[in-house]
């Protein structure tokens, strides 16, 4: 999508034009969904969180600074609604506990033949609290102090959750490795064979701390 077309859509969204809203929604559906999928347990939950994000986008479109990249703004909002979703489900966050994860042997990860869906399924299988911290630290690049303030937890808790998340992921990777060329993690996703061409550098996008919805 060209810059001009994007700006036309945005100004249509400011006027609450439903057609423009739908076009923008469709254009950034994959991008937004990919963020929400990482923070949630399944596709339906991700869609719910993503819609909350788009709702915020459409109701606060006038506050978007056109001088900044739209994708960064949208990505930030999706991350924030995911964090809000995590906070509202805090009771469910620690339903699973770590079992014998401390003794997982480390191997060479590069050799593992795991694709996007495999990795996403692993992240989704993490308990909510571990998943959120892992996403924020490992994928988005936030520090433990920043994560602590975002999630209203101690930095120590953030470190501990990250450690447990890593242990669990290692466990899953080697389990997948041992079961004939990787297990089929069925996360209920329907995937298109086309890889997103315009995928952004995730790190660069989410380190933009100037925007907080």
């Amino acid at each position, binding site marked *: 999508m060209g810059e001009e077309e994007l700006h036309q859509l945005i100004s249509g969204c400011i006027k609450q034009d439903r057609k423009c809203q739908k076009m923008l929604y469709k254009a950034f559906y*994959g991008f937004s969904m990919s963020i929400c999928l990482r923070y949630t347990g399944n*596709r339906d939950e991700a869609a719910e969180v993503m819609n909350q994000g788009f709702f915020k986008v459409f109701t606060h479109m006038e506050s978007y600074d056109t001088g900044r990249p739209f994708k960064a703004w949208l990505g930030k909002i999706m991350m924030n609604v995911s964090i809000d979703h995590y906070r509202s489900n805090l009771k469910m966050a620690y339903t699973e506990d770590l079992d014998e994860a401390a003794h997982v042997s480390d191997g060479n990860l590069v050799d593992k033949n795991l694709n996007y869906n495999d990795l996403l399924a692993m992240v989704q299988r993490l308990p909510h609290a571990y998943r959120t911290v892992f996403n924020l630290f490992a994928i988005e690049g936030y520090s433990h102090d920043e994560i602590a303030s975002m999630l209203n937890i101690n930095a120590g808790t953030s470190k501990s959750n990250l450690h447990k998340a890593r242990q669990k992921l290692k466990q899953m990777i080697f389990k997948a490795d041992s079961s004939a060329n990787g297990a089929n993690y069925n996360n209920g996703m*329907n*995937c298109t064979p086309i890889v997103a061409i315009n995928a952004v550098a995730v790190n660069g996008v989410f380190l933009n701390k100037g925007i907080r919805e």
Partner: protein
Amino acid sequence: MNNEKDKELDDFFRKGLHDPVDPVFRDNDWSSLEQMLQKSKKPKGMVYWLPYISSIAALLLLFLGWWSFRPKQSPQSQSQVATVPHKQSASQSSEHAEIAKSTGASDKNINANPSSAAPGKASIGINAAASGRNKQFAAIMQTEKRPGKESNANRELAMLSLANPRPVFITGLIDQPGINSYTLPNQSVTEMAGKPKSENKVKITSRPAYRPQFAVTVLAAPDLNGVGSFQQSKVGTNIGLQFSAGLSRKFTVTTGVIYSAKPYLTDFDSYHTLYKFPVTPANVTADCRMLDIPLNIGYQVYSKHQNRISIGTGLSSYLMLHENYTFNYTTSNHAYGYTSPTSYTVPHGDNYFMGVLNLNATYERPLNSKIDIAVEPYIKLPLTNIGYSQVRLQSTGIAVGLKWNLNSLAKP
């Protein structure tokens, strides 16, 4: 070593998740977002103005309540008609006693034919007032069908006499043993009061119980108490606990227990007793302690930016705990060798079930996810006579409370 391995794992996931496989667009997802957007749209037309119209209506209601019970000249002139025979009867009490004996002290048909019980001007005054009152009640019923100048005038008269019906009948009460003579206006009023009660029930049952939302409110309220009007009002105190259940997003039913200290000052005309005072007191200062058990229904008329306004109505039951009356005299309380009492205490009073009409408007705002602050201006109008003194005790005040939401209707 460990740090490097961890970093390697993080990088492995970051790179692996770097190029996401675009999920297939689902129309259902857009539909649910469209619904969310649709709901958030501002209502237009009448619906948009409904909260404002309702607020104005609530204010008008409060004003009319105040207007109806404000002190007036015309009721005084009515009571003067009644007080003339009162003085007469006081001075000629012995004659009246003889007449009462001759007609039979247990005669219960005084109201039906008062002229036979007490002949003379006094009885004519009572009779005229009583028949006039009946006409006024009839006029209220007629005005809905045939509004006109005359009927409007009648209604106004009827409102006035409803507001302060006591003085006309007191004269008969003090001297005559036929207590049931004053029950006529009460019956009429309570019959009329029965209507909103039944309407409330219909409202409750007609709404389906949809995920009830429960809340407990601790409240305190200063209020003004007066008899007939707020002319001689005194400040009372209320402390209570209320429990509310949301029947739907709009309707809420509230009940609870409120401890009320209601002091008030009233003219002796409004004070009813069978005891015959040797010297008539000028006025009575009362201090009543009671439990107020309200049963109210509220309708939310406004909800925006966490501010909620609702209007409500309902009935209160008063359980009297303690009543203390102090009689004030303009001159000495000694006369004819007798002394009038200066005070009277009722340790355990009667209960008055559903005897008070509540009208209120409530403003609520959440302090956090569990606690709301509520401010509630209210007015309590009597449907029956309250207390040992059988007065038309009315109250108005502002309750301030903290409302603890026991469960939440929507996800945070």
